[in-house]
């Protein structure tokens, strides 16, 4: 017998109708309790999944303040949804970023740092990002050192971003 199982045994013999009804109620209650027990133990018994995250986001500038560019767009790949990035150009060759992705069943939030280089009309960044929190189906999401790369068109700050790596959900 596995953990959380309840076996109800009803021995057939002469059972009066009242006794049979009581037995049925006991049996039903036992079954219900068994189902609850299996349901409760089922939540803890389901192991966290690890998925290979392969995301591409295409974003446009919505606003800027000081050294921060606020971008919004669409993410596609393993997870589809809206994506928002706050890019902070902390120096001539470094950026930090907060990334938020909103699929239909939750959200993911991560923070990253990257080297930044400007090459004429296009700037590129390359670094790592960690997923630190989520909601909904991603409430237990966690990832560290995801590959975080992208390009920024300097003429209009349109951004393409790529996220790759293992994500625990």
């Amino acid at each position, binding site marked *: 017998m596995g953990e959380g199982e309840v076996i109800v045994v009803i021995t057939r013999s002469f059972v009066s109708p009242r006794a049979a009804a009581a037995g049925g109620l006991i049996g039903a209650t036992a079954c219900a309790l068994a189902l609850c027990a299996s349901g409760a133990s089922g939540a803890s018994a389901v192991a966290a999944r690890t998925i290979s995250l392969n995301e591409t986001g295409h974003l446009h500038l919505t606003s800027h303040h*000081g*050294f921060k560019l606020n971008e919004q767009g669409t993410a596609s790949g393993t997870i589809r949804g809206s994506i928002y990035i706050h890019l902070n150009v902390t120096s001539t060759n470094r950026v930090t970023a907060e990334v938020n992705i909103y699929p239909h069943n939750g959200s993911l939030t991560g923070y990253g740092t990257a080297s930044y280089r*400007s*090459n004429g*009309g296009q700037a590129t960044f390359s670094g790592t990002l960690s997923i630190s929190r989520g909601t909904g189906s991603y409430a237990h999401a966690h990832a560290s050192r995801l590959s975080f790369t992208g390009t920024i068109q300097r003429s209009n700050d349109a951004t393409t971003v790529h996220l790759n790596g293992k994500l625990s959900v």
Partner: protein
Amino acid sequence: MRHRAAATLTAAAALSACAAAPATTAVGAGVPEQASLHASFSPNRLGASTTISFGFHLATAEGLAPPPLTSVVLHMPAGMNYTLTTLGLAICQPAVLQAKGVRGCSPNSRLGSGSALVEVPFGTGSGHEIPEIQALMGPPTRNGDMVVLFYANGQTPVFAQLVFAGEVLPDTGAFGSQLATTVPLIPSVPNGPDVSIVSVDSTIGPSHLTYYKHVHGRLRSFHPLGIGVPEHCPRGGFPFTASFVFQDGSQASASTTVPCPPPVRHRHHR
């Protein structure tokens, strides 16, 4: 590389030279050089896209032309905002610039312009102007740092087209970035002494710059956005410092500040 023999001074002369030039620093066994620096923002407004104008003047304590300059590092104030600037949307390759001049490079690679005054070792001391100095965006370094190419088109006393590069690097403390430029030696005549740079004035910014872009198949002109003036002005103004190294190993430095912009008056309409 030719090396100029270092001149020597008595200790008393060296001390008097230092005392007469409180704004400069002389290091090394050579004749102390004097340096002065000036800088400005146009417009000088917090957070605004701006054109940075800077310039320096070099001389010996006796007012003579200094030894040839080999490097200059310009330290710029913290908070300069490179985030939104659209300067340098194209790259100019140094080899193309050397071969064809600025016309060989896209107008969208231009960053600014200026002029310089040079002196030959046997000159009269009045200096010779190089009227055309252009600053253009060069290919980034292997580390990804921005590069500013300076193109000097000299006619007299030396007919030469020079290309030299400055690397934009992060800085610390009161300075957020620095432009570190290696200056090539400029021969006055073949196998002769090198020319001395007496002064340089240049700009980095959109003033007098026109870029071009294709919009719906048509070429449209526009003015790029410059580097942003810091959002906050430190007490005393925005600091700039330049350090110079000369062929004989001597060094000098100079500092200046751009005054804080006047506060913006907000009109209240009733």
